[in-house]
């Protein structure tokens, strides 16, 4: 995930919150285990929630499926 880590850090540094939603969702897809995935999904969901990002319903559904909303 080093490339993804770099992109996440760059997005944080640039204040690119819109980009963070996608990057954290990508991190969730690459995570090992449910807890790690839900951590990243939560990050994506919260940043998206603030922006009314179109991915929010899907992120919410993934968290809900794990009982994490």
């Amino acid at each position: 995930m080093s490339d993804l880590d770099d992109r996440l850090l760059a997005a944080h540094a640039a204040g690119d919150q819109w980009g963070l939603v996608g990057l954290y969702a990508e991190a969730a897809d690459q995570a090992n285990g449910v807890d790690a995935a839900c951590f990243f999904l939560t990050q994506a969901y919260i940043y998206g929630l603030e922006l009314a990002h179109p991915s929010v319903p899907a992120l919410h559904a993934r968290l809900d499926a794990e009982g994490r909303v």
Partner: protein
Amino acid sequence: MAKDQTFDDLSAVRRPVETANGLPNAHYIDPAMWDEEKHAVLFANWAGLAVASEVPEPGDAKPIEFLGIPLLLLRGRDGVVRVFENICRHRGMILVSEPKKIEGAIRCPYHSWCYGTDGRLVSTPHVGGPGHNTHEAIVRENLGLNEVRSHIWFDTVFINIDGKADPFEVVHADLLERWKEFGQPLIHGGADSTFTLEVKTNWKLAVENYCESYHLPWVHPGLNSYSRLEDHYNITELGLYSGQGSTLYRQIKGDDGAVFPDFAGLSSFWNEGAEYVAVYPNVLLGAQRDHCFAIILQPNTIDSTSEHIHLYYSTKTTSDTLRAKNSAQWKVVFQEDVFVVEGMQKGRHAPNFDGGRFSPAMDSPTHCFHEWVARKIEAHREGT
């Protein structure tokens, strides 16, 4: 402090205007009195905070500090304007630090608890551990933003901080009836129709000066040329509100003679009638056939006040030029009052000033305000 009055003695203020004294100096310069009035007068009643037009669109949020309390003026996605304490229920962090549009949720910048524009707590990330966003100890339904009781009238957002005042419609039933013809949409004139004056005075002196017409020929000679003292009358509703009225209101005209369109359905009284009322404690309103205004007095410290002026019209399509002329004219009038309210503030440091004596003919609106303040302080001291 005046030599014939004690700190707690407000009986002289509550006498009839013919024999009353004004509020003692302490009410303008004593930090202990400032603190007491904050609770007894401004928190315990319906104080003006802002105008609803400051958050015109759903999601618009504006942080406002009121007497040290961080508040958030917010128009929800449902269109309703509400006032909240501008803090997260988690660690008390300030939520919104500058005016902004809330696109989705209000996210606390600390641990990212999220709130809807209606104040509901909608998400608590990692509150049950990483990736676990719930915990049985955190009941979201009980942890929405702390809402401050509010009421909107005349586009003005009134708040009752202590939550104990009678309903706004009850407290101001008389004024609502008096001005019921203005119970119609007031269209804010926009950016060119609002301005703020920073004044080095206690907020009450701005109210007192606004109430009365006695000073017009001396302080506003230009205004007096078309709005003469003899055409004014006192509005004095003891225990309620006060102000002044004019029986010879003349509309502002453009170079081409154009005027602003009238508000709909006004009775003939308003053809040449105009009224200017102080809605206690800190809101000053003006009602005229073709435009209205609201002034919110923001008490900053015991001797500094921000005067926020907003002008309103009957339609969205008024002349830019005429609006600008009108704003400029009112700004001159209100600026002419600055030296007066600042001078009276300085005067309150004279130890032998006894609160002053009133002209029974001309000062009854000011006395009415003092009497109201005194009765609110007395009620606070009595715990009623």
